[in-house]
């Protein structure tokens, strides 16, 4: 496979490179299920988790992945550092470069921050986008694809794509980096994507996206033989900005509940990137059902991130962008 240097967008992945990462993640899952959950692969490499936005879940998932590959891990969070005193992304990046970071996992509130870091020349290491504003979150898309593949193909997963599968993504598509990355990767892997949201929570020009756009969850459930439904987190503050009238109305029309779940096929996956707003986009009964993959997604997140780190960091290093 071609050597990837950065993972900034799900669009960086060809079908074969995506499948390769998912296959390596299968092996990593094997490591994660044994007693000694550690590989020496990244010994001597320094990985910085640069988090300008709170996200304990994503940060510890990356941290565990890095540590299981024996990398030296530094957590740099904007709140506990000089960034809050007005240090720029550039100064922070150059500081990390001076400290010899081999890779930077960045979470930032600005869309494109990971791209800027990768192409600015401030830093030579690999950049992994752990969520940039409302742009992308490619490792989330990879772990979602991994989860779907494992549930559907089980031990026969390796080498498989997701062609023919019908996946619905429901909720705040406009502000969701998870939705953007999933849309790209699911298309790369051959799945058919249905985006479902109130019209206010779609971006302008969404018709250009490779997906079926729907405003009604019930029709989608009735008309499409869905293999998986991904619920997106809905932020309460969207209500105040008049994206929808009330949480009650949102939940009634676009929320996942026991009734809607019962109309999905029994094998359908019910996915959520977490953290869930129980009672808003998903009811407790749905979240705790056998269809729910929420905890599998968390576990798979570590395996997939190990695979990504392996693919980006284990090979020969050059200064040429892949």
């Amino acid at each position, binding site marked *: 496979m071609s050597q990837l240097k950065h993972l900034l967008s799900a669009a960086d992945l060809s079908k074969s490179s995506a499948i390769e990462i998912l296959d390596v993640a299968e092996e990593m899952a094997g490591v994660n299920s044994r007693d000694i959950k550690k590989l020496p692969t990244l010994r001597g490499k320094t990985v910085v988790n640069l988090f300008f936005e709170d996200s304990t879940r994503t940060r510890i998932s990356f941290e565990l992945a890095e540590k299981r590959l024996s990398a030296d891990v530094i957590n740099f969070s904007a709140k506990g550092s000089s960034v809050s005193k007005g240090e*720029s*992304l*550039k100064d922070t990046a150059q500081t990390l470069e001076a400290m010899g970071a081999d890779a930077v996992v960045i979470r*930032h509130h*600005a*869309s*494109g*921050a990971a*791209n*800027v870091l990768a*192409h*600015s020349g401030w830093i030579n290491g690999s950049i992994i986008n752990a969520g*940039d*504003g*409302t*742009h*992308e979150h490619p490792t989330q898309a990879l772990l979602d694809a991994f989860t779907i593949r494992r549930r559907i193909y089980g031990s026969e997963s390796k080498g498989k794509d997701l062609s023919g599968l019908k996946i619905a993504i429901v909720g705040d598509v406009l502000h969701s*980096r998870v939705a*953007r990355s999933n849309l790209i990767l699911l298309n790369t892997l051959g799945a058919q994507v249905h985006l479902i949201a109130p019209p206010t929570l779609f*971006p*302008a*020009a*969404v018709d*250009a*996206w490779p997906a079926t756009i729907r405003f009604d969850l019930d029709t989608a459930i009735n008309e499409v033989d869905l293999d998986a439904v991904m619920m997106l987190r809905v932020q309460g503050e969207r209500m105040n900005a008049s994206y929808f009238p009330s949480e009650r109305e949102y939940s009634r029309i676009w929320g996942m509940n026991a009734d809607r779940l019962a109309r999905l096929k029994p094998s359908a996956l019910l996915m959520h990137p977490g953290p869930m707003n129980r009672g808003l986009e998903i009811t407790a009964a749905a979240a705790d059902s056998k269809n729910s993959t929420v905890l599998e997604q968390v576990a798979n997140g570590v395996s997939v991130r190990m695979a990504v780190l392996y693919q980006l960091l284990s090979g020969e290093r050059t200064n040429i962008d892949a």
Partner: protein
Amino acid sequence: MPNLLLKNATLPNGQIADIAIAGDKIVAVAAGLQSDSAGTDATVVDCTGLVALPGFVDLHTHLREPGFEQSETILTGSQSAAAGGFTAVHAMANTMPVQDTAGVVEQVRSLGMAAGYVDVVPVGAVTVGLEGKQLAELGAMADSLAKVRVFSDDGKCVHDPVLMRRALEYVKAFRGVIAQHAQEPRLTEGAQMNEGIVSAELGLTGWPAVAEESIIARDVLLAEHVGSRIHICHLSTAGSVEIVRWAKSRGIQVTAEVTPHHLLLTDELARTYDAVYKVNPPLRTQADVLALRAALVDGTIDIIATDHAPHPIEAKDCEWPAAAFGMLGLEIAANVAQQVLIDSGESNWQRLAEVLSHAPAKIGSLTEQGQEIAAGSFANLVLIDPKQSRVVKDSHSKSENNPYKGLTLPGAVVHTIYRGYQTVANGVLAVKGRN
């Protein structure tokens, strides 16, 4: 300051003529002028193959002084303007302190005179501190030595309709004009780039075309209602063109400008997340670019204005949402105009002279700029070699937020003559100004 005899220049109408300049005036324009037409000691400049145009007038320049001298000063901005073929620039009001009093506008004017590369014509703020709440002392600025005639809160929209109405009415007293920065503030909260296919993919908050168009529609109707003239800054959308076209057909006294970057660049460039392409109003789509070009050709859009907006490196060398809006424009305006009007085959040099000189001078009520190339006119001229082309490199601006860097653009400014003084000779900027 030697007198000048420009030999064999091509006038905008295509005729070839010599131009004799004595002091700050053109004294003769004709083919085969005697060598002493500009006096016996005149410098003779061979202008064979060069197109002579009236010196360019920019209705929309940010010179940043006073207050933001790390980005640009009146001197460096004037030099950049001269290098781009300009002989007058309107200095926008968003300085610190804001150009909202007679004192500040007179200071800007006198710094411009001291620099001596172009006429620096201050624009007055419409509202105190650009805050959109209370009218600034428009009359005092009009009566000052700076003789302000163009008023604008540029960078911010005068969005209060009542305040806008009053401003439009008030400036009639001294034949002033309000130059509106059309941006509905609520529709553009947090906006980063044109709202469309690209913004959806990039996850950058969209800036809908309607935020510009709704204000233009409102303001042309207000101007009609109160019988005032209005100027629309930096039109950027096809819809804005349609509204201005409609307003002109109704006889509303509206003029409109377009920037070089909106004539050339599109929102596809945002895919790089390079903040050098971040500008207000944002780069739009190719369809908008084509509509703006057509409108410039057919007269719906009256002028090209640069919206030259220098920023220091740190304001651009950062993540996109944190970056400042704006890009340089003074030194590529002529090139872009040539590409769009001449090389495209859509128009001619007379139109180019109109949109870069005659019309902006008229909108700004400047009597000594934008004149015909004729005996008796002030000697404000630019000579362009349309056959040269150049790869854009560094500019004379103090700032480097130049999105054209690396692009090849047609045409080159060979000479700029500002009130009889060569600010640019053979492509080289004069070391000192006119004084």
